[in-house]
């Protein structure tokens, strides 16, 4: 599963880990995150993320 990087702060969304602090279960693909999901570090929106090379 692809990881995605926040272009604002550098946080990496790792689908294997999810974002449990914000109710995202491990195993959730980036594209399946809710549209209003935000970067847990800086609050950037999903379209501020890029697929990790």
């Amino acid at each position, binding site marked *: 599963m692809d990881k995605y990087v926040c272009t*604002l702060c550098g946080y990496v969304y790792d689908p294997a880990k999810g974002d449990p602090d914000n109710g995202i279960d491990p195993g959730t693909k980036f594209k399946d995150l809710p549209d209003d999901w935000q970067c847990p570090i800086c609050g950037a929106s999903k379209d501020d993320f890029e697929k990790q090379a």
Partner: protein
Amino acid sequence: MRPTKIAEGIYSVGVIDWNIRDFHGYSTDRGSSYNAFLIIDEKIALIDTVKKEFADQLIKNICDIIDPKKIDYLISNHTEMDHSGSLPPVMRAIGENKPLYCSKMGLKNIQRHFPQKWNFHAVENGEELCLGNKTLQFIETKMLHWPDSMFSYLKEDKILFSSDAFGQHYAGYEIFNDQVGEAIMPHAKKYFANILLLYAPRILKLVDQIAELGLKFEMICPDHGVLWRNNPSEIIDAYVKWSRQEGEKKAVVVYDTMWHSTETMAEAISSSIAEEGVAACPINIRNSHRSDIVTAVLDAKAVIVGSPTLNNGLFPTVSDFLTYMKGLKPQNKIAAAFGSYGWSGEAVDLINKEFESMKLEILDPGLKIQYVPDNEAMDACFQFGKKIAKAVSR
């Protein structure tokens, strides 16, 4: 400096750091200040503290106005230590159990700085705190410039306490922008270029958000330098302009040199750019601080970088500059590389690689000259400059 009343019931109680010349690698030739604000109403709030070395001065300033024990709330807009460093002595002075307001990221970050289990209150974005006749509203400004950063807005007085945003590293007895005049802008610009440039897209979003919320500002009070009292929209407009990075008709030629060959090239390239009516600004890295160089780059349409090849690599000062500039994520710029070399000449390609990773528009594969530029090489430099000037003018 002694506390100053800035509006009815509102005092600036911060301190001046006259002697700081290096602020985490940013050259502060005019020192700085750490501003803090006391709001006196039915309830009393202190917004931000100062660098820890200045805690006694801050507490003394507060004591000139009220007994610190009367403070009801401490508001921490930002966790960086120039504003949080005095939290321990200030909390002791006002009472360890008093509520400490901060953003949600502030809560996490303050706990990463201090072991004390203070009475934290992490605010929701837009949350309000009523002080009696005055109301504070908190606005999350994540990554402007830390995850914890927030603004506090005093609704009735229309005063924005903006933390680091709109600040300037400037030490002086002047309190307000109109007391310094236009001379404050270069300091505000340098602050933006070094601290905020990489968050330009976020700044543009925030300015839109402020407009949507219909917020009006009578005064903007940053945590460094003068307060924007006279026409505060001037600094907001400047932030919008700098964030857009449209680039003026200007090329900055940044270089270092070993035996003056790369320097000779830099000067030839610059003078050729200038002949075409484009402002050209040659900067020898070793005579300028990196924080001043990126300030010059901020509003330039082109950034041209020259390096000799040393031991098959970049000259170290050029690497330093490129690393620093890359972190600040400049956008919409034309770039080109040049340099003199002895036998291998890797530097130009290495500069291009950095330009590529910064997603700058590389205008030319770059100009390499072996050893000392001869007439033919000088001509190549002039042609190179012309090509740059043409691209800047298009």
